[in-house]
């Protein structure tokens, strides 16, 4: 399906619009809530937000593409956030990324064909003393080695079967 004829259930946005009614500066908060609902920001949702908030579609798109938190495509069931902050870099984040790419066959910003994993590198997860570190969904994994990272991903894959 192409982006222009996408049909999202826009009624899910109603409570979000109600919560931020009258707040002219809530665009980012609305986009965050919308992403929580849909898992990403479908184009028709962006149009709906533009119409409701009175912002131009160009402005909504501009904000949605400015911030790294927002994504315009769906992500896999398990989102791997790989930290590439300074401390993680010094402690070998590149080798962890290489190991994940080897194990999953996809790189930064991509999703595996089975829809199980997406990899995203991030600037800093704010837990430098655990470096190198990655988060998979809500869980944080620290003091990684390439072998350990592969093992963690394999276990999640086994558990999903």
């Amino acid at each position: 399906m192409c982006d222009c004829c996408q049909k999202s259930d826009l009624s899910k946005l109603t409570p979000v619009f109600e919560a931020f009614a009258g707040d002219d500066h809530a665009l980012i908060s609305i986009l965050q809530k919308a992403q929580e609902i849909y898992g990403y920001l479908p184009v028709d949702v962006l149009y709906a937000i533009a119409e409701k908030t009175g912002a131009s579609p160009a402005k909504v798109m501009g904000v949605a593409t400015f911030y790294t938190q927002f994504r315009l495509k769906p992500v896999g069931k398990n989102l791997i956030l790989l930290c590439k902050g300074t401390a993680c870099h010094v402690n070998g984040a590149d080798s962890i990324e290489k190991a994940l790419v080897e194990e999953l066959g996809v790189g930064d910003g991509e999703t595996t064909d089975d829809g199980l994993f997406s990899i995203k590198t991030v600037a800093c997860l704010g837990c430098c003393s655990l470096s190198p570190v990655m988060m998979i969904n809500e869980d944080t994994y620290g003091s990684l080695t390439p072998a350990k990272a592969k093992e963690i991903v394999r276990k999640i894959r086994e558990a999903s079967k």
Partner: protein
Amino acid sequence: MDRAVIESDPHSLIEGMLIAAYAIGASKAFVYVRAEYPLAIVRLEKALADAKAHNLLGENILGSGFSCDIRIKAGAGAFVCGEETALIESLEGNRGMPRLKPPFPAEKGYTQAPSNINNVETFANVAWIILNGGAAFAAMGTETSKGTKVFALTGKIKRGGLVEIPMGLTLRDVIFGIGGGIRDGGTFKAVQMGGPSGGCIPEHLLDTKIDYKALGATGAIMGSGGMVVMDSHTCMVNMARFFLDFTAKESCGKCVHCRIGTKRMHEILTRITEGKGKEGDVELLQDLCNGIKAGALCGLGQTAPNPVLTTIRYFRDEYDAHIREARCPAHECAALKKYEIDPAKCKGCTMCAKKCPVGAISGELKKPHVIDPAKCIKCGQCVATCKFGAVAVK
């Protein structure tokens, strides 16, 4: 460390903000928290609700006639939003692009109203200073930098973590005293201070006092309070490339010098780490650094050259080794690594030849093997596989 303050003592922030709001007569306040710190947001929400329940926040606080509300705004992942005017733009729901200053936020800030904007750590100090007096705070620290500061000590250090120290201790005190020195028997090479916009300070400046002025003189900054320790295995050119990769991606794109300059610098640094550097590259980098410093509106652009300038200043020999000899002294840059098997150590077990993904290793059983440099892709599998430590990286 701001994350630690919000997660472990959110009321110190709330109290500091309320005192500041009272002082300037503000009735609305925001805490802008990175969305990557969900626990900080949850705990701050609870603390705000608790404060409201006790009438320490909200309407007519403790019957004083003063009202102030604090709201949380979750950031959306843009480094530049640490710059005050970019943060204000983001608060207003816009792209986080810095404004022209003046007017400064104190004149025209959030929704063009006069605003006071401060860091979490600053607000968290306010209540302590009022309780104990300014003299007690000023008794700690140096002539130009008073009080204490929290640092995130990390990298190749034995004991990492958050450390709060009085200003004026030396870098050596913190890294070798508190941090216990370099881990895994390594040797100290540099400490990177102040986050991606900071600078790298070499060993001969380890006795530099930690205060704003002394750190500034080294080319580094206090910045975020990041203190990343590096050992002899860290290539300083690659480190500069790493930081420029970050700032080039995080540049908001408003100022041409920052948007394009950081990209060009990243390209040049990448070229150098790949052994394709040219004579004059260092001078070109320095020229770009000066251009960006002068031509960028905000702190991100003005400080983005710091990692490059400081590594050139203190580690020029590493740049020259990459450019003139296609050699990485720290053996970190993959493209410049050379793998060789020491025939004296090699037992001819064939393990490395089996592991090599491109068949670059040949040799007979029980006889020393050799690596064909033309085929080698420098993946390092042979080093990881060899049980006799016979593969050397040069």
